[in-house]
């Protein structure tokens, strides 16, 4: 065994160590207590895998210069790329606000998918000189390019929507569904020709690339802001799959393993999010194409009057309660009111009130987003309760304080025949009294009236989440 062969084996073992670290790191995400350590384990595995790759490239150049050649340009590319990309990533990660987390994750999906697609593009350009391409190579390259490109443009659009650069509401292109179908057909036909002939073809390849890039745009543009938790999870899964395909293309097991892990995790989260919104993944993706506003024509339960309540009255209810459950929704995140809600909770706890938070799985703009926002505001995580755990407790709650949450509290979901029917909801209406902080009687994403607001037990405090909470806190203080 030559030195180079020994190094090749060692490097492959390092890649295996990296893969093991990824699995162990993810396993440690099971509990908030071990999660941070898990992330470090995963990062350590990544450092080992990347370091080993650098050693491999160097060893090949130094020990076998005839086949590999010592090229300074290689190192300029690698070091330059890492400095530029790593610097940008570090800056973005350090400065991003927690409310902007979904768009950053989406941006990282875009660059990850983009890198995977570039690997396949590079590989294909090399293959153009050969006369025939093996069918399995062809399939993996084409899959990598399709999935990677869709992820790249799709994630950029999703990120732009979340950042407000592109309007968040569904954008419908006239004949958008036809365009999307046409793109899919073009891709499938072009890919089939490549597979059958086995001859590399630059025009067909570019056609597939272009169709996939446009497909990513037309797929994501029509999807509304409230469906973003599903879209981001799905694109995360796509990125993982694209990376696994890149692993097949360059025959590298660590890319295959890591990509498959991420693909699986994204798929699970996509399913969980879609279930929590009472919609199928297909419905969300296709629903956007067709318009997705079937809810507009639906009839909600009409009638019932709304009782408005002042901050002082609401403060008295809260201050003399024993158990208060706070129900934060996206309105709270938009108003950046997570710190305001914690101040109010602190004030109530000083008065001996027991405060818990009921977190719906799709509160926020990505899976688990609300938990991060509240954690940022120093809310201890044991107070954050998941839907299944908190629902039985609403009956014992003296006051449920709903802040900027709408559809996920609508009791109409328990009946059939409404757009929210069957959607898992928080049983807010079972609390002894309910205070809702909301700017107006505007409808939620489902486009129907919330029957909770016309409930006799409900008092509506019409205000922006942050201002409403500030006036409540001031009123509690004055008591």
């Amino acid at each position, binding site marked *: 065994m030559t030195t180079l062969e020994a190094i090749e084996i060692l490097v492959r073992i390092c890649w295996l160590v990296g893969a093991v670290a990824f699995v162990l790191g993810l396993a440690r995400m099971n509990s908030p207590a071990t999660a941070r350590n898990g992330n470090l384990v995963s990062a350590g595995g990544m450092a080992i895998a990347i370091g080993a790759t650098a050693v491999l490239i160097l060893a090949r150049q130094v020990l076998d210069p005839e086949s590999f050649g010592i090229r300074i340009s290689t190192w300029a*590319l690698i070091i330059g*790329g890492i400095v530029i990309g790593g610097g940008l*990533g570090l800056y973005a*990660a350090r400065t991003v606000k927690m409310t902007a987390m979904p768009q950053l994750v989406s941006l990282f999906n875009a660059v990850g998918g983009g*890198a995977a697609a570039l690997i396949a593009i590079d590989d294909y350009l090399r293959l153009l000189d050969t006369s025939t391409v093996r069918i399995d190579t062809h399939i993996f390259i084409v899959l990598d390019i399709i999935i990677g490109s869709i992820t790249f443009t799709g994630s950029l659009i999703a990120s732009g929507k979340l950042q407000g650069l592109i309007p968040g509401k569904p954008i419908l292109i006239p004949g958008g569904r036809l365009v999307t179908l046409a793109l899919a057909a073009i891709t499938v036909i072009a890919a089939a020709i490549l597979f059958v002939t086995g001859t590399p073809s630059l025009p067909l390849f570019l056609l597939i690339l272009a169709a996939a890039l446009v497909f990513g745009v037309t797929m994501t543009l029509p999807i509304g802001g409230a469906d973003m938790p599903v879209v981001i999870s799905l694109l995360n899964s796509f*990125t*993982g799959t694209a990376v696994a395909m*890149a692993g097949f293309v360059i025959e590298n097991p660590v890319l295959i393993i890591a990509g498959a892990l991420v693909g699986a995790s994204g798929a699970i989260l996509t399913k969980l999010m879609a279930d929590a919104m009472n919609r199928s993944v297909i419905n969300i993706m296709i629903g956007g194409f067709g318009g997705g506003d079937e809810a507009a024509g639906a009839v909600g339960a009409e009638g019932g009057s709304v009782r408005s309540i002042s901050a002082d009255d609401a403060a008295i209810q809260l201050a003399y309660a024993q158990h208060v459950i706070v129900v934060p929704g996206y309105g709270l995140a938009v108003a950046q009111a997570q710190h305001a809600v914690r101040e109010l909770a602190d004030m109530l706890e000083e008065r001996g009130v027991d405060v818990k938070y009921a977190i719906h799985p799709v509160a926020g703009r990505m899976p*688990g987003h609300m*938990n991060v926002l509240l954690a940022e505001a120093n809310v201890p995580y044991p107070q954050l309760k998941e839907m299944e755990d908190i629902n039985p407790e609403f009956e014992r709650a003296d006051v449920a304080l709903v802040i900027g949450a709408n559809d996920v509290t609508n009791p109409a979901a328990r009946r059939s025949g409404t757009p929210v029917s069957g959607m898992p909801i928080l049983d807010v209406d079972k609390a002894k009294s309910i205070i809702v902080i909301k700017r107006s009687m505007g409808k939620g994403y489902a486009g129907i009236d919330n029957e909770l607001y016309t409930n006799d037990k409900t008092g509506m405090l019409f205000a922006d989440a942050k201002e409403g909470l500030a006036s409540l806190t001031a009123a509690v203080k004055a008591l």
Partner: protein
Amino acid sequence: MTPDEIDALITSLTIFTLAILVGFAVISKVPATLHTPLMSGANSIHGIVLVGAMLIAAEASGGVSQLISLVAVAFAAMNVVGGYVVTDRMLQMFRKKPTVPKPAADDAEAAS
């Protein structure tokens, strides 16, 4: 395809399939509280594509190929570095109790 090539393909497919199953098994237990850090953590893991980007950079010859690999390395590095740093930032916020500046709080907790 030669028998060796078929072997290699089947091995890769086996690794891929088993890794998906491991992913399902490991992740289905994660509580909703940690879904955002989980996604962000998984997000950093697909930064492993940097290994692939470095390997194509090592073989890059000619302007197009070099440009492609430079962009691929930069994209992947952004993914890796940004992903891990932001996940860590998020996870350090998950505490049982709000941090109290005075160490006395820890003593009181231990005593009780």
